[in-house]
């Protein structure tokens, strides 16, 4: 039954928007992130990124690894459109980040979920408010906020602690609140810059497993990490950077030792 339905659907797709398909090659349709020849030089010193190219498909799970100072965070900031490249092109979800208008940036960012090493929670508010905050900021109708927030807190396993002040939570719990906040607006892409950097191994695993679960639900996930053990056992795509260039990009890759 299901197969039949799928077949029908495929046929229908083939018939109807034929022309559209041709003008838009298949590669770009599946690609959610396209980085072409990007260089980023800060005011001071040598380039933090030096002519990198990277293609990421919708629904992928990608680790970005590399030594300190190799340009991983710079890459994440470019994808957020917090920074602009010195040269080269970046397209994310169809937005050409070099041409995007200032007014469009909020709309673009609503399709991104972002998680940092230091959690960045609002310390004067409780768990529920921290997640609801994200919904208020994007002007979600108030009637929907409660359900959405509750669902997200259940997903990360923090529903029972929704009233706690975030300062009274463990690091792992705080990161799960941050994750719930990043996901509550249903982003297409989750960007995480060293999300387990401040966590013990147990909590690190929990967070990584959560992100894998989120990825299985269809969200594209990009994780910058130094956690060799987790990368090596999760068998995902691994992009390795060194001094501003991508030195390796492997499906089911591993995080190599330096030597």
């Amino acid at each position, binding site marked *: 039954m299901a197969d039949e339905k799928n077949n029908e659907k495929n046929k229908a797709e083939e018939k109807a928007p034929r022309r559209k398909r041709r003008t838009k090659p298949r590669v770009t349709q599946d690609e959610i992130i396209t980085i072409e020849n990007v260089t980023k030089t800060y005011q001071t010193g040598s380039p933090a990124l030096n002519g990198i190219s990277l293609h990421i498909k919708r629904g992928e799970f990608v680790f970005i690894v590399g030594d300190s100072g190799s340009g991983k965070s710079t890459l994440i900031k470019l994808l957020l459109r917090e920074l602009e490249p010195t040269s080269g092109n970046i397209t994310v979800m169809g937005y050409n980040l070099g041409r995007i208008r200032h*007014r469009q940036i*909020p709309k673009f960012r609503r399709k991104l979920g972002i998680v940092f090493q230091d959690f*960045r929670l609002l310390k004067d508010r409780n768990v529920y408010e921290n997640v609801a*905050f994200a919904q*208020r900021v*994007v002007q979600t109708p108030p009637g929907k906020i409660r359900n959405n927030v509750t669902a997200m807190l259940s997903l990360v396993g923090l529903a029972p602690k929704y009233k706690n002040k975030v300062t009274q939570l463990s690091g792992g719990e705080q990161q799960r609140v941050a994750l719930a906040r990043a996901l509550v607006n249903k982003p297409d892409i989750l960007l995480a810059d060293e999300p387990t950097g401040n966590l013990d191994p147990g909590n690190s695993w929990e967070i990584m497993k959560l992100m894998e679960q989120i990825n299985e639900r269809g969200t594209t996930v990009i994780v910058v990490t130094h956690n060799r053990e987790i990368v090596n056992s999760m068998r995902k795509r691994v992009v390795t950077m060194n001094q501003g260039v991508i030195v390796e990009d492997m499906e089911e890759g591993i995080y190599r030792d330096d030597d």
Partner: protein
Amino acid sequence: MMISTFWYTLGQGFKNLTRNGWYTLASIATITASLFLFGIFYAVLANFQNIVQEAEKGVSVTVFFHKGTTEDEMLALKAELEMRPEVRQVDFESAAAAWEEFKSQYLGEYAEGYGGDNPLEDSSNLQIYMTDVSRQSSLVSYIESVNIVRVVNRSEIAASTLSAANRLIALVSFGIIALLIAVSVFLISNTVAVGISIRSEEITIMKYIGATDFIVRAPFVIEGIIIGLIGSLLPMGIVYLIYRAATDYFSSRFTMLKSFFSFLPTSAFFGNLMLITVIIGVGIGFFGSMITVRRHLRV
């Protein structure tokens, strides 16, 4: 804008006020002080204007005639002058009436010594009261050109002194108030800047989440407007009470003042004053916060 957005912004605006309490208090205090002074000046000016207007009503031009001018000729001139727009009222006083008045006021029983003679024989006159004292000189030169007129007496000094004093007070108070308003704008923009720096972390997160410029900025502008509103309502309450108390005190203490002028009742000017003050207060709050938000929140 959605209604929930409105409440969110308003709520955040109020929260900002309490987050940096001391700066908020300082700006409210400055605006209150400025607008309090403004209120006082306004009340004083309104009363002064009232005094000037009352005094102007009393300022008159007196016209005397050549010997031999008949009463009919004088009355004809009176009728002609009454037609002019700047003239409010013309009173005719015959020589006989003038003499009677003089006798009763100054001579009393000694008047009998003069017998039937009227020493003020040529003192028939017209008293002209004007609607607009500033047109007094042109009226006077016209009357002087009429051939039956001997002399025109006027009290120009009183009129010009009054309006000069009026202008001076207005100018000085305008200067002081402008200065205070500038200080208020400066303080509000500082308060908002402090608020922004306190909340820079939150603002960064908001931007990552995808908040529009409007959502990020509006709470701070609301904060400024609330400060301006409180800072204008507070001094108006104080001015109202003080004015009431002061006018009651002066009127009861110096009863002889009453023959010169009376204080305006609050109903005569307070409505206008309130309106102007709230507009200024909210304007200060809006511009003060806008300046800072535009400079510090390039989101």
